[in-house]
């Protein structure tokens, strides 16, 4: 059973601080990490391989050459091999072009049973690439997966998180699953895994390697354009209420009266 997990390297938000004077991002020394949701996708892929006792987990990322670090980390966690999609021609890709590019790589890998990704990436927050990949490949999708109840080589029964609770969905395989945090608790890399990651050869595929139509990739392949980037208006300065609890709670309730009565 071949399982493909799609990951993205993102800036670590714990490091992102706002400069209070300019209200812009301070990025000195911000390290790059695997998108937090993708950690659950990696873990679930490995667990399913373990459940079947056979198979291969292939981790794929599209990004600059330094995204190799994220792929090595995925190998240290238990993925079997890694492929980096890296090409100047991919620059400026929006979610349409990204999902096309990833689906081309998945086609080249071929003979896959499951495709896992995090529900969304922490830098863009779009949640569009997973469903996009399923559409390009014309296979079923289940988004926001919080539990895989049953899985065979042909079918899966999963729980999809909703605003009110969850849906139970049965789907044939191959399928794309995007996962939420509740699905598992990711393991830490083992020593053996770290050794393996250090030595692993990361395959690099270009647009040509995966047979991309140049009109579908990078900036040219992206229907959307960013026309402006700006800082959000700063929140107006807050007010600290002083005094004993009796007094502060009474004052606060008074301030909030209109909001609460609505």
């Amino acid at each position, binding site marked *: 059973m071949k399982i493909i997990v799609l990951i993205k390297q993102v800036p670590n938000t714990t490091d992102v601080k706002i400069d209070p004077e300019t209200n812009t991002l301070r990025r000195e020394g911000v390290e790059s990490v695997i998108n937090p949701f993708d950690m659950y996708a990696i873990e679930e892929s490995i667990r399913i391989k373990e459940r079947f006792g056979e198979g291969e987990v292939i981790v794929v990322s599209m990004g600059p050459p330094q995204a190799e670090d994220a792929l090595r980390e995925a190998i240290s966690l238990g993925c079997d091999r890694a492929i980096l999609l890296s090409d100047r021609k991919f620059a400026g890709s929006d979610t349409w072009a990204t999902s096309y590019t990833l689906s081309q790589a998945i086609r080249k890998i071929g003979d896959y049973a499951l495709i896992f990704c995090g529900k969304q990436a922490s830098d863009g927050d779009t949640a569009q690439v997973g469903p996009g990949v399923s559409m390009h490949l014309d296979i079923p999708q289940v988004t926001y997966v919080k539990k895989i109840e049953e899985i065979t080589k042909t079918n899966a029964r999963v729980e999809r998180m909703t605003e*009110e609770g969850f849906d139970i969905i049965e789907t044939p395989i191959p399928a794309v699953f995007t996962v939420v945090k509740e699905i598992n608790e990711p393991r830490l890399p083992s020593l053996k895994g770290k050794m393996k990651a250090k030595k692993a050869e990361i395959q690099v595929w270009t647009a040509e390697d995966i047979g991309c139509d140049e009109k579908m990739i990078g900036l040219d392949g992206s229907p959307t354009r960013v026309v402006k980037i700006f800082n*959000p208006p700063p929140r107006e300065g807050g007010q600290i209420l002083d005094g004993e609890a009796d007094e502060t709670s009474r004052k606060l309730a008074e301030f909030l009266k209109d909001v609460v009565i609505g």
Partner: protein
Amino acid sequence: MAGKDPIKVILDKCVGCELCVKACPFDAITMENKKAVIDLAKCTLCGACVDACKFDAIIIEKKEAPKQADFSLYKDVWVFCEQKKGKVQSVAYELLGKGRELADKLGSKLCGVLLGDNIEAECDELIARGADRVYLVDSPKLRAYQDEPYSKVLCELVTKHKPEVVLCGATTIGRSLISRVAVKIRAGLTADCTGLDIDPEEKLLLQTRPAFGGNIMATIIAPNTRPQMATVRHKVMKEADPDPKRKGEVIKEDFDEETYSSRSRLVDIVEEIEETVNLAEADIIVSGGRGVGAPENFDVIKDLALTLNGAVGASRSAVDAGWIPYSHQVGQTGKTVCPKLYIACGISGQIQHLIGMKSSDVIVAINKDPEAPIFSVATYGIVDDLFKVVPRLTQEFKKILH
């Protein structure tokens, strides 16, 4: 090779002022010999540096794709009206409010799109809330949302009627559905918008959304494809008020069995019994964090939430400690919320939490630690023990509300 790069620094014009370095959200610009150098591997061609440069020293060569078709055929603003159990969700009324404004600016019609089973009765409400026309697809096969039939039906409708703009709530359903449609019809799609407007000259939809967890805002367009599609964050736009006198038409559409078919199968919809309303719909959220200390202590938080008819939220540390289920988690790995009032109790305010709630209208922080970062986003702050303040606050609100 250099000539083919889509972004270039004109060395004669660059004075080495470093404004572009500061402006770049992706850390892609460095200075070498007092000239800007752009790392194409990191650059996303967002154009922030072009705007920042006072010397016109950076240019992006956009090879505009030839226009696909004559866009004059595309008209009207569409709103996908999400329904659950036969009831249109409030996010649809928010989109109708915004959609009405956009349609008026474009001089076009506002149309609701409603998919469901035995749901015709809901059309009147959509018209009262501003729709000039409702496209209704009524079939037992569409009773509850499923990815494949819903996306196939919507693709068919869009291809047939050619709307100029399609809006959809950035909900679980909306985000799963609309991404499929955008890929299928090769249209531009912007996720999770918090602002929408029309460019008065080009008549383009200007879609503004937070990025990097709300640390920067980006305005996005889709100049060369139609329809222009966006998902919109719930609770940001104001609901359209109903006007029962409004008139509109209902156009019924039907499709073949293939279009309604699905490879995956919805077996069951499980609603988890909650003492309080769900986070996404709540106007008021009371959240607890590490300071709550134990699962049973969440009763204090729940009491306040119940009094205010609000929902209970939690920080990641409270969820990870097992005090409250994940479905309550607000923040980066949980839910993004923007209620009218957010009361954070015993939450320090790590950036991952702030990302999920800082666009709330009014934020209250109650925390023992005066240095807690949560106070930096708070409208009102109380530096005190939450177990002293929260029960008293509950009592005060009970007095006001009863």
